[in-house]
């Protein structure tokens, strides 16, 4: 058998290749982004760029017509609206699918989760087509109903509405599956006991169902809020940010870099968002860990 010292080295032998690659391909670019955010890298200074201190951060936080705050606020509102609609629809569908006497449950469930199975960039592009002003099915439907066509993809308000519809379509299946799984794990005797006591459906939902599915629902909601906050595909592919008017944080960072070629400014913005996400992630880890210890 090998010596003790040699055995101690084994894990490093196994992990080093992956760790080296991870440091070069993942961690180095993060630090490089931070470095770029302190330079003047842009279209004119792509090869020769210099350190300029906090200028980019000052510009992001104090000028640009408050775009930073508008985009962050919009992203938060976007996240909240999406979550409220998603959770309500998902919960409703899960409750319906959980009715004992219901037939064809399997096939209905499969059809309902189909949106989840479509690659999200394809979904976004399909929705973009459906919301097309002249040829999209949505406006065709509206005009058949005698209503006027809506500029879905060119007006900021309708652009956000269209994006929310597409995103809800995309995201409901995951939440529905989580709700359904949680509902199915509830013991039936609780409801039977409640029935004997003469509880209404309303009471049963708020005093039995909700408390019992909360442990499964809360982490899923947190996970989804992160995903929604970081959403890129829908907004970018459908509206392309409309020059900052429908941008959320991710698309804003991307467009600042690759539409206006302001690489260092985009990096400064990204670094700020990165730290916001980092803070929220650590907070979430702390809270869930505290939960586990109890």
């Amino acid at each position: 058998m090998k010596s003790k010292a040699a055995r101690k080295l084994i894990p490093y032998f196994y992990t080093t290749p992956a760790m080296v690659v991870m440091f070069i391909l993942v961690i180095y670019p993060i630090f490089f982004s931070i470095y770029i955010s302190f330079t003047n890298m842009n279209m004119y200074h792509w090869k020769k760029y210099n350190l300029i201190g906090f200028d980019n951060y000052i510009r992001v936080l104090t000028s640009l017509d408050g775009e930073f705050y508008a985009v962050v606020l919009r992203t938060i509102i976007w996240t909240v609206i999406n979550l409220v609609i998603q959770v309500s629809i998902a919960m409703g569908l899960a409750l319906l699918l959980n009715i004992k006497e219901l037939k064809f449950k399997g096939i209905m469930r499969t059809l309902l989760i189909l949106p989840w199975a479509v690659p999200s960039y394809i979904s976004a592009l399909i929705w973009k087509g459906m919301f097309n002003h002249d040829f999209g099915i949505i406006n065709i439907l509206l005009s058949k109903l005698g209503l006027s066509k809506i500029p879905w993809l060119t007006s900021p308000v309708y652009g956000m509405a269209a994006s929310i519809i597409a995103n809800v379509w995309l995201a409901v299946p995951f939440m529905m599956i989580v709700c359904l799984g949680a509902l199915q794990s509830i013991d039936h005797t609780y409801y039977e006991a409640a029935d004997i006591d003469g509880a209404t459906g309303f009471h049963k939902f708020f005093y039995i169902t909700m408390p019992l599915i909360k442990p499964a629902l809360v982490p899923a909601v947190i996970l989804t809020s992160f995903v929604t906050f970081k959403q890129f595909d829908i907004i970018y592919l459908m509206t392309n940010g409309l020059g900052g008017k429908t941008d959320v944080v991710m698309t804003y960072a991307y467009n600042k870099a690759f539409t206006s070629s302001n690489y260092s400014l985009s990096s400064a913005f990204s670094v700020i968002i990165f730290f916001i996400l980092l803070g929220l992630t650590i907070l979430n880890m702390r809270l869930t860990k505290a939960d586990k210890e109890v």
Partner: protein
Amino acid sequence: MEKVIYKNSYAVKTGPKRRTRKFIKLSLAYCVLAAFIVAAILPIVWIFTTSINASNTLLTTSLDIIPEKMTLNHYKNILFGPNSNFFLWLKNSIIVAGATTGLSLMLGTTAAYAFSRFRFKGRKTLLNIFLLLNAFPNILAIVAYYKIITTLNLVNTLIGLVIVYTGGQLVFTIWNLKGYFDTLPYEIEEAALIDGASVLKIFTKIVLPLSRPAIAVTAMFSFMAGWNEYIFAMTFTTNKGIFTLPVGLWSLQNAGNYAQNWPLFAAGSLIVAVPVMIVFLLLQKSLISGLTLGSTK
């Protein structure tokens, strides 16, 4: 009238009244579910209709699911048309997704094993770093990646994409496989160790064969990630010959000329999406448990 019946019905839960109530409730449930099912599959049905519609999409305002004049020409054109690069894009996508999967599995499996079975200095720190990196969307570092790829002269190459994707998938692979290795009972390996087997032998002869399903699912995820990625791909490639399928489809849809390109996009996106959807439905269980594993604990 009916409202009155409802109000008192839970007090008189017997006989035909209760049955009628049940019936109404069930029918309502079916109606609502049917409405949402229509909403869920409408975009997919619509893209299918577009892909087989022979008449000019610009002029039809019909809402028929089955178009009056059907054709498979759009499929023929996207696959074999004179301007079609479909098979080139397919080849590029397979190369990029395949190489990403191979590299991240090769590096990730061994590392995941060490993180699961050994306690060594730096382990905890690294695991915490993984957790944070998992939350980090690498689009936020896209400028840095772009600069690195440009400096290395890898713009418009598939290698450039593989480099970026492997970084993204590596963390996921390690995390996912470590979770699986943790569930394998250590006793078998212990017995082998006592019999004098080396760690390498235990890893290759016992752990890897036992983990085949988990490795397959992880590989599938990595492959899908590369297969579906378009943000880095569209940013780092400008040459049509280097496009992956997502970028190709996106360019079709983005090129204007809605009448000509939209049916092509519809046909192409179905060709790309249907295999993904089948894999998804087959892997449903592991996908769902994988996604909720960390969260429901």
